[in-house]
C-alpha cells in the first residue's frame, strides 16, 4: 500500500494517489492536497464543486465524470478547468478524498 505524507501524517492512498479511507479526509487535508496538486487556495466555488462531488459519490457510489460534474455542480466545463487545471474530475475527486472517477474504461 502506498502512502501520502501530508500534514505530518502518513495516509494510505491507492495507485492513483487518491485517499483509501474517506475517514482520513478533512477540510484541512483538502486544502493541503489542493496545494500539493497545484490547485492553490480553495475558493467558495472550489468548495461548491468538492461538495457536489462528495454528494454524487455518496448517492451513486462512484465519483462523477466531468460531464456529470458540470450537471451536479452547475459549474460549466471551462470554469471547472480553470478551478482544477489538468483534469477537473480527477483533481476534484482527489481533493474531495474520493477515488478516481471510473468514467473511463
Amino acid at each position, binding site marked *: 500500500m502506498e502512502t501520502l505524507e501530508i500534514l505530518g501524517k502518513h495516509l494510505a492512498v491507492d495507485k492513483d494517489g487518491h485517499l483509501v479511507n474517506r475517514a482520513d479526509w478533512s477540510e484541512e487535508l483538502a486544502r493541503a492536497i489542493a496545494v500539493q496538486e497545484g490547485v492553490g487556495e480553495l475558493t467558495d466555488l472550489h468548495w461548491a464543486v468538492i461538495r457536489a462531488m462528495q454528494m454524487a459519490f455518496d448517492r451513486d457510489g462512484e465519483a462523477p465524470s466531468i*460531464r456529470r460534474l458540470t450537471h451536479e455542480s452547475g459549474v460549466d*466545463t471551462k470554469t471547472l478547468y480553470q478551478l482544477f487545471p489538468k483534469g477537473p474530475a*480527477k483533481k476534484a475527486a482527489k481533493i474531495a478524498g474520493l477515488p478516481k472517477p471510473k468514467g473511463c*474504461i
Partner: protein
Amino acid sequence: MRRLVILGAGTAGTMMLNKLARVLNGDQWQITVIDGSETHLYQPGFLFIPFGVYRPEDVVKPRREFFPPNARVVISNVDHIDADRKRVILEDESAVDYDYLIISTGTTIRPDQTEGLLDDEWGKTKFDFYTLQGAERLHRFFESWQGGRLVLNIAEMPIKCPVAPLEFLFLADSYFTARGIRDKVELRLATPLSGAFTKPKATEILGDLLERKNIKVTPDFGIARVDNERKTIISYDDVEVPYDVLISIPTNMGDESIARSGLGDELNYVPTDKETLQAQAYDDIFVIGDAGNLPSSKAGSVAHFQSEILFKNFLDRIEGRPMSARFDGHANCFIESGFGKALLIDFNYNVEPLPGKFPLPGIGPFSLLQETRMNHYGKLAFRWSYWNVLIRGAELPIDSKMSMVGKVA
C-alpha cells in the same frame, strides 16, 4: 402468452435473442426484436478499413441471417419506451407491449457535441472511424495523402472500445511505414486521460510502445473546440494542438430514444445494476452491452460475457427465483500493434490488465500485454467466430468470469 421485447439487434441484442429463443417455449412466449436497420455491422472490423485491410463487404451482413425463426422482427426506429405501461412506442406511434424488456440499443458517436467538429470539413480533413461511412472516407483520404500532422483526439470518456484509438495509431505507424512516408507523418494522441490507457500497468506498457513507435502523446487534453480556419484543436485550458488531418473519437452517447423515455443518465446510458444487469428503475427491464452505465468497457467481449450472466438472471427472474448470476466486469481485448502483431489484455472491475499468459483450451496460450504474431492471428480469427459462433449465441471457450490463471501480478 408472455412477451419479451429486445430493443436493438447489434452484438448484444442478437446474442441474447439467440440464447433465449432456444430455451423459451414457443407456445408460451412471443419474442420480438426491434431495430432501425436491416444491416448487421461487424464493428471491430471498422478499425482495419482505413488501412485497406478490410473492405466494407467484410463487415456487413443482413441482420435477418442471425435471427432465429421463432422471433418476430420489427424494423423500425423507436420513439420511446413507456416503462410504466410496459410498452415500446415506435416512430409511427404504434405500440409493442412487453412483459420483459431487454435494452441493447448500444452507443453512437456524437460529433455534434464538440464545438466546430461537425462542419463542412467533416469527412474532408476531420474523420471518424467508428462508423462504416467514416472509415471508408478515411480510407479514400489516406490513399492519396502525402503526409503531415495526424492527430487522434478522444473527446471524452467513456468510449466504445477504449483500445481502438491506440490500435489505430499503431496501425497508422505500420501503414505509413509500408507506404514509405512514415518520416513525413507525425502521429499524435491528444487524450483526456493522463496517459495511454485507463489502468496503471497497461498505461505503462502501452505508453512505452507508443514511445518506441514515435507516437507523441498530449495527455489531460479535454477538447473544448475545433478552430477550423487554423486547423487546430483547443482544450478547455487553452492548450492548442495543430493538425493536418484530425481523427476524432467524438463523445459517445446512448440512443436518443433512451433520453426521450426518461431512462438515461447525462450520456443517455441506462442506470443498471453492475452485477445483475437489471435496470435500476424497473425490475422488468434488463440492459446489456454499451447501452448501460456499467463501469466496464464498452466492447463486444464484455457484451458476450454479460450475455451469459443475463441469460441466467433472466431465466431466474421469469421463474420467480432470486437472480443468481453476478457480472464481474470481465473484458478481453486484442490490441493490434501493427506489423502483424498484437497484444491481449484481460481484466475485470477489480483486477487491472496484467502481463502473463492467457490459456485458451485447444488454441492458446496467448501472451498478455506483450506483442506477438499469435495475438494478431487471434484478432483476425475473431471475425469468423463473431459471425459464426458469437452472435448466434453459441458457446466460446472463454469463461464469463475472469480468471487469474497465467497472470503475473
